[in-house]
């Protein structure tokens, strides 16, 4: 297992970059949010791999917290998207641009 750590960390880095790219290029608020979730889950993958590498439980413990926090974020985030959709009938972030200089 330990000889594959590099590969797993590389995979998590690729997933993280995909998440960042998704956030920067997508227009729909829900898709952006899914990309953020991808970023958080790539971190989980890295944490589990490091936890195995160091033979230490801390990383796996943090993974549980990350999942709980991601769930809380989903609850608030989707509520915000619903409230904006009710008022504007869109979740496209390029059309939601009242506030700018």
């Amino acid at each position, binding site marked *: 297992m330990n000889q594959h750590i590099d590969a797993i960390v590389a995979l998590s880095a690729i997933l993280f970059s995909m998440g960042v790219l998704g956030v920067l290029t997508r227009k729909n608020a829900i898709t952006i949010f899914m990309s953020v979730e991808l970023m958080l889950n790539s971190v989980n993958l890295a944490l589990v791999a490091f936890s195995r590498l160091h033979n230490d439980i801390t990383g796996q413990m*943090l993974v549980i917290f990350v999942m709980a926090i991601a769930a809380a974020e989903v609850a*608030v985030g989707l509520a915000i998207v619903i*409230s904006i959709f009710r008022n504007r009938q869109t979740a496209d972030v390029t059309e939601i641009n*009242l506030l700018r200089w």
Partner: protein
Amino acid sequence: MPIDLNLLLRDTLSVAPVLIVLLSGIVLMMMSASKVQSKLLPWVAGSGYLISFLTLTFVTVPSASAFSGMVNTGSFAVVGGSMILALAFLHTMVSANLLKKDGIYLGEFYALQAFAITGMLMMVSANDLIMVFIGIETMSIPFYAMAGLKRKDVRSNESAMKYFLIGAFAAGFLLYGIALIYGATGTTNLTRIADYLASQTPGAFFWVGIGLMLTGFFFKVSAVPFHFWAPDVYQGAPTVSSAFLATGGKMATFMTLALVSMKLFPVPSAKWAAVVAVVAALSMIIGNVTALAQTNVKRILGYSSVAHAGYLLLALLSQTTDGYQALAYYVFVYGITTFAAFAVVGYLEKDGNPVTLESLKGLGFSHRTEGVILTIAVISLMGIPPMGGFVGKYLVFLNAYESGHLGLVILGVVTSMVSIGYYLRIILSLYTRPESTEVIANPAGAFALTGLILAAVIILVSGLYPPVFTGWITSLW
């Protein structure tokens, strides 16, 4: 492993201030779900913060670690925690009438605020990157909701969504940084990471982790180039929420950044300072210059918060105790000042119309007390004596100069001069006679005025006799 009940009890008692705020949040949530008179809610919230503040400052807990090194009590946690609680108390005094005016249900707001403060208190007492992350998220998630509390208002919706998407994005960076630091050092405990750094030279992995974590922090404190959300959020959110997001959030996040820097680098790190210096310079320039072009007062305050993030970052350059103490003093005064400014703007708002430099005209005559308080706050933000903002800037610049960052100090002074350009326009608007004599009557109410006057007194005292607060910070350190 058997559980040592005595230890558990001792640890639980040592974080009592956090638990009191959490409990008052739960009580507030329950009260708002049942049909209790909403008049009671601010009293419950305020007394919760007051009890927590008194426990934190007067029940002396020795500086010790609790919960197997996850939490550090005493000293730093007391400094950070009591400034946050003092701000929260003032905010509770001022906010009730503002919430009613905006048509926001009090129970929702106060419960969310109490949970956010729980997160802030966790952040400033952290001794582990896991605690830092959980604290930041416990603070941020209620913040997203607080920004969107005016559900029918599209601007409030938009600001909540921007805040949420950017905040979650930033959390991803912060977390990936933490994961890489964990991968490089094998621990998330700040003290043990520092031990690791003392015994061996960290590789590229560690520094990439630090960089990603700093990126997350820069997003949260709205430093350039990660600042673009701040003016939008502070402008669009209900003013009563902005008054807390822009101040409490900044206090807690900057204190945590100082905490992380202090614990990780007992020996100053040139790499850390180099990154912070670039971001500080950009924030000071772009924040101040962009603010010159704004006419909406809340937006000006948003850009001013970007600029002040730059000044605050200057205090992190030296990585000495003096620097961290200067930062604590600056962020305390900045928080109270910006809070006073936002709160006054909230009371001068009429029918949800934005307060612009144009609509401010003449309000200094019709609302004398509010006008004077806004003037005091704005002068303090400029950094002109005899207000607290001057002493804060002086301490920060002095520290940066002593650590050999003369260029940045000159830049700081020059950009402060530039900032007078837009701050002065607020004061001029306040005391210009308007063409039309339509006067907006919107009295703040005695209780809110007391809170605002208290904030103004803090600003004045911190400027006229700084040892009150600098002595308090150094005695606890």
